[in-house]
Structure formats: C-alpha cells, structure tokens
C-alpha cells in the first residue's frame, strides 16, 4: 500500500548551497506531522518544494499515489493541498470575506464569459461559495472581521484569516508554515485548539513547520527534525526532543 503523502529523497541546491539534502518522510492520512529545526535548516524551503513554488533538483513528492513533483503551484491547490505562509501572504487591500472567497477559487467552474454576463450558474455558485466560506468563518470565529480590509486587522487575526483561507480551498492536506510565529500566548493557545479541531472535526491532514515546542508537543503525532537540510530525527515529539543530535543542534553542544 502506498502512503497518503510521501517525500522521497528530495534535494534542492541554490548555487553551492544544498538547502534540502536527500530528505525522505511520509505522512499517514489524518496525521499531524511537524517539521522542526534551527533557523536556516531548510524547513520553509521544504514547504516551498511541496507547494511547488520551488522545483527540486532530485527526488519525488507523491500525494495519494500521484507523483506531483512535475505539477505547477496552481495545480497543487487543485489536488487539495493548501498552505499558509510564514510572513502572511494575504490579499491586503481586500476584505476578509473576499480573501476567503479567493480560497474557493478551485471550486468555481464558470468561465470569464459567464462571469461577465452573471448567468444563473454564476449566481448559484456564488451563494454556494459564500455558504462554504461562512462555515469556515464559524469554525475560526472570524465573523466580526467579515468586511474589514486585511490591512486594518491586527497581526494575530491575520494569521487566523490565512488559515481560514487555506481551509476554504477545501484541502485534504494543509501545510502550515509557523502558525504561531508572532502570536502571543493566548493566541498560540487558540491556534493549537484550532489545529486540533481542523484535524479532528474536518478530517484534514496537517503538515506544519513550528518553533514553539509546547505547541509542537501538544498537537503533533510525529515530528521530523531537520538541520542543515538533512533529516536528523523522526518520531514522536518526546523521542525527537530527547534525541542527542537534536539537543546538540539546538544547544550547540
């Protein structure tokens, strides 16, 4: 049986620097899988490889038995893989509602011509999109920010909006790049709850990069530690945290 999601011997080089070096791992459906590692370990690069913003020099990414290494970034979303960004890439001049509706893009089947004429099909789909978006807003409690432009929202809320937008894609696999960065203690706590809720209630498999170890141990089923682009340790949160190489990498011993 093939794994739900599998990364095989993936490598990417930027000039002389090997940012990700022969990394392999697999994720089971319904799992929360976390990648940790010191700064510059190649975590975000690995994310960009998976969401196809970068093209690997070697190796394969297999999702549900399909090799997605050769697909483009926009096709990846069509397969049901959605992501958030470490530094927040929201559509800043648009409202929260519009941002989430963009997330629904892969579910719209109307052509530009039909859009211009606003045919009944377009109107029906709009209502369906709206309903789906409101459901996500209910889960993440974003209703009161519905019509606020992103530029006017505090950082913590933007982080949540980004997760919401990724959920609107209707993903089977959700990639979260440092969901807790820039959040205070309460917000991090709420984020942990939401990650668990997204995983349990919506049945979404989660792959995340995270620094906050309390969040990592609270939500993760398995953890992969990277250093200098190489996989250092793989296992449960406790196993990885007590692994001698990981301790050495973090404490510099």
């Amino acid at each position, binding site marked *: 049986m093939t794994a739900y999601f599998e990364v095989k011997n993936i490598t990417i080089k930027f000039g002389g620097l090997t940012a990700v070096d022969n990394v392999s791992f697999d994720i089971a459906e319904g799992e929360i899988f976390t990648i940790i590692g010191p700064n510059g370990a190649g975590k975000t690069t690995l994310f960009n490889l998976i969401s196809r913003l970068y093209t690997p020099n070697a190796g394969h990414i297999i999702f549900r038995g399909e090799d997605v290494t050769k697909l483009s970034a926009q096709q990846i979303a069509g397969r049901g893989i*959605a992501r958030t960004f470490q530094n927040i890439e929201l559509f800043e001049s648009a409202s929260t509602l519009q941002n989430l509706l963009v997330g629904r893009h892969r579910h719209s089947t109307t052509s530009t011509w039909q859009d211009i004429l*606003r045919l009944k099909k377009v109107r029906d789909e709009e209502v369906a999109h709206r309903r789906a978006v409101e459901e996500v807003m209910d889960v993440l409690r974003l209703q009161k920010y519905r019509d606020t432009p992103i530029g006017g929202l505090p950082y913590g809320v933007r982080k949540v909006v980004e997760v919401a937008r990724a959920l609107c894609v209707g993903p089977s696999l959700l990639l979260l790049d440092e969901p807790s960065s820039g959040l205070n203690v309460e917000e991090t706590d709420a984020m942990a709850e939401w990650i668990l809720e997204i995983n349990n209630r919506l049945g979404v498999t989660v792959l995340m990069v995270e620094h906050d170890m309390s969040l990592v141990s609270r939500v993760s089923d398995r953890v992969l530690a990277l250093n200098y682009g190489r996989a250092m340790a793989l296992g449960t949160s406790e196993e990885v945290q007590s692994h001698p190489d990981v301790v050495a990498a973090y404490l510099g011993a």
Partner: protein
Amino acid sequence: MSAHVKTSYQQSEQLFPSRAAAFWYAILTAVMIAAPFVIEPYYLSQLVFVLIYAIVGIAMNILSGQAGQVSIGHAAFLAIGAYTAAISAKYGIPLPVYLVLAGAFTGLIGYLVGLPALRLHGIYLAIATLAFAFIVEEVITRWEHVTNGNEGLMLPPPALFGLKLGPYGFFYLCLGVTVLVILAAINIIRSPTGRAFLAIRDSETAARSMGIDTARYKTTAFAISAAITGTAGVLYAHKLSYISPEMFSLSVSIDFVMIIIIGGMLSLRGAVFGAIFMIMVDPMLIVVKDKVPQMTEAAMQAIHLAEPVARTIQAGVVRVVGAPGLKSLIFGLIIILFIIFEPMGLDGRWSRVKAYFRQFPLYRPTSARAQRMFLKSERNR
C-alpha cells in the same frame, strides 16, 4: 446614522447596496437622459467625451486597479478600435457590427500584449506597453493604403439601423455603451474572475497557492481591458469624425493613466470621477485664461498700484496663463499632489465626505487613516 443589515446570501446579489442607492442612481439616470434637452451643445459634446473617457477609465481600472498590471500604452488600443471603425465604415459595414468587431479585435490584440506581462513586472511592463504603443502608432502611420497614413481617415456620421444619429442620438449611444460596460465591469469584479485579479494584484505567490492560473488571468485582464478600450475607440472616432495617427500619442495614454490616479484606483466610481475631471480641465483652463488677467487688473486698481508696476505685473500674469505648457504643468502638479495627499483619489475623498454625513456628529478624521495605511502597504508596484 443608518445601518444596512443583510439577512440572506442572495442579498449580496443585488446591484445596489440599498434602496437609497437605487433611488439616487435612478435620479442620475433620469438626469443623464434629460441632459441633451437641457444643456448647451458645447457641454453636451463635452459630456460625450466624459462618457468615452469613463469607458477607458473603467478599462484602466480593470487592468491596473483590479489586476495590478501597469499599462502606459492604452492609446494604442483606442487607436486600433478607432481605425477598425473607420475602415469598417468605409466598406459599408453597419455600426453595431463593427462596434462588436472592434471590441473583439482589440481584445485579441490585448491578449497578445498580455503575453509579455507574464514575465514582466512593474516598470518593465510599463516600458513594454509603451513600446507597443509606439509600434502601433508607427504601423498606422506607415501602412498607408489601409490607414491613409498621416492624412488620416474620415468617418461617415454614425448611423444605427439606417437611421442617422444626430448629436442627441450619438449621446444616447455613448450613454448606453457606458452603462453596459459599467455593468460588465461590476459583474467581473464581484465574480471569481475579479477575485482572481485582486489576488494577482496583492500577492501572486499566494494566488498561485490558491490554485489561480496567474498566466491565464493576466492575459484575460489585458484582453478585457483592451476590448473595452477598443469599443471606446469606435465612439471616439465617430465623435471626432476624423482620425489620424497623432491623435493616439503617448500623451493620450498618460491621460488615461491619470484618469484612474486622480479618480482612485480601486473603484469604478473613481474611473468616472477621473474622466469628469480630465475632460473638465480644458474648459476650466479656458475660463482661467479669460478671467485671471481681468481679475488681477481689477485687484490692482482696487489697491491703487502705480501704473508701470501694474503693467509689468499684468504682462507677467498674461504670460503665465497664456503659456503653452500650462496644461502639462498643472497636470503634473495634480498627479504629484494626488499621489502624496490622496492616494485613494477623488473616490476616496467622496467616501470620506459620505462617511462624514452618515456618521455625523461622530465622524473622526482618523477613521480614514486605516484606509490610507492599507493602500500604502499593498505591494501594487
């Protein structure tokens, strides 16, 4: 103070946000329909130019305001539309046919121009569109047996289904086209296509990760914008009844960019405001040229200034208001002032005035701050 609460998703489908808005738009429509019978022919003619510029403004809004792609070559699309009209008319093709034909053909050219946009950003794209405009101008000048070169082409008076359109009829034709273009633009903006545009404008990386085919939507934005401009070109050609290559120079393209800078990038209303402003500058300047010397003379007489000094000042004033570059100077100044003080354009000002009255007496000038902030932080360069 009033609040408008939506109670169903279908309500977002309504064209007008509230009954009051529908009422005011109905008044506006009535005023526009009555206009030819009320205003002088000169102003009716200016109003036709306002409508044509508004159509182009909407085309610019879709491309630059919505999709975030720069173009300083839109005069070329206007030229392609205008020449399609003139040449079609020469072969006896009826107006409704070439109105559509010009739109479709210019749209196709726009699609082709959009292809380099896939690789170019910001200033580089601006230069590419500028180069395109020069190429079109050059082709029109040189391709003499089709375009008649520098001698230009005459157009027959516009006729619809065998009926000659007078100034009134032509005004209504322009009005009808403008309304249709505005409706189409509204539909685009509130549809998945429009949201794909805004996604590309604000963050291309995120747009791709949301499954948006950025290449497809960029070329679509160019095609739609060009098609609308081409349609405006048909009306423009008929309005002037004579076209020649130098009417579609760089300065016309710059005028079009100014429409949306002055009016406001992000809204269709801004495009219309900008068009009104651009067309009204000329009559205003004429008034200024007439009145300012008289006024200074009167002022100097009032303060009993010595004769030689007064004459020097008077001559200076006449020289300044009569200077040939005055219009460009004023335009340049206006652009700079708008970018610094009113990045949301006339539409931003309008929204704030409206907010002031709606929230009176609770309105605080600082409530507009956030609006300004988000425009500054956007990556629309």
